[in-house]
């Protein structure tokens, strides 16, 4: 079976940026296949949810296989799912570090790998992997999370070269702080300090994220690949 509508995969859709992106593309007429470890908690036309841990190799394989059978195509992947544990490195347990690397790096890789196998067939695809500005600004207290997202950037740059011949573009995107659950434990003074260090001194918005994704996903963006785009003047 193959649909005329574009199919986009979004990971980590239960809340925050992922949920916004799922709703944004569903409203734009895409078929959105989302996943998160828990139930979605929302319903939108064109949206289908699967409970999935992106670090589960077999689960990701089955998820992508099912989507391919239902729709016959995958046009874009937005790897938004991630976990963060904001701790001083001297207080970070190995299990916490390993879990962040497993979800943020291996999980991103698994979804890219299995989706790209489907994209290859049609010689078209858009992959957007989410990173963070806390890596380039070297924010104290987020060493492992930032390291995992730096790995995502490097992975994506190389992925662009490995998949470019099949018409698949691969880019990374790092938003400025957005008031999601992920940063609810960060002291306000620290968030204020980060915002004061930006060129545009405001918190990020969900619309900032969909704006960048719209740009990377445009058909006319076929020569934009291997890039990392940070908001707020961060490079």
């Amino acid at each position, binding site marked *: 079976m193959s649909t005329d509508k574009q199919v986009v995969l979004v990971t980590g859709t239960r809340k925050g940026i992922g949920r916004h992106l799922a709703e944004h593309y569903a409203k734009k007429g895409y078929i959105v296949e989302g996943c998160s470890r828990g139930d979605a908690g929302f319903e939108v036309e064109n949206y289908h949810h699967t409970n999935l841990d992106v670090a589960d*190799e077999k689960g990701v*394989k*089955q998820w992508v*296989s099912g989507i*391919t*059978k239902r729709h016959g195509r995958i046009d874009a992947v937005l790897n938004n799912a991630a976990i963060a544990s904001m701790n001083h490195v001297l207080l970070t347990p190995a299990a916490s570090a390993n879990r962040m690397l497993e979800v943020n790096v291996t999980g991103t890789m698994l979804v890219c790998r299995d989706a790209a*196998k*489907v994209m*290859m*067939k049609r010689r078209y695809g858009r992959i957007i992997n989410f990173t963070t500005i806390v890596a380039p600004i070297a924010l104290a207290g987020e060493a492992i999370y930032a390291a995992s997202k730096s790995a995502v950037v490097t992975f994506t740059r190389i992925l662009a070269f490995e998949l470019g*011949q099949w018409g698949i573009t691969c880019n990374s995107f790092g938003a400025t702080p957005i008031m999601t659950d992920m940063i609810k434990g960060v002291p306000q003074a620290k968030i204020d300090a980060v915002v004061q260090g930006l060129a545009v001194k405001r918190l990020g918005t969900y619309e900032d994220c969909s704006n960048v994704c719209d740009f990377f996903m445009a058909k006319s963006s076929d020569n934009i690949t291997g890039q990392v785009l940070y908001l707020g003047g961060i490079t």
Partner: protein
Amino acid sequence: MSIIYDALKEVMDQAGVASPPALTEDTVIVGKDAVLDSLGVVSLIVEVEQALDAKHNVAVTLASDKAMSAKNSPFRTVGVLADHVLQTIAETGAAA
């Protein structure tokens, strides 16, 4: 076996590689006298995986840790690849 032959023909067509007079179980995929380059092998493995899933509802990853660390590549000839496919399906219980 037909899935592998079809996939090999498709990958060779896409790469603009002339097919040998006849594809057999002994057709070399990896190593000296291989009919594909390294990227062709990647395409072939993906093509076989996708065909197994689409035609037989079998979702497997042929490039497993075991396969990639094996002393003798499980992708070296058409026949060896076919054995590897059957073994992978049996080990993972992936058949529908």
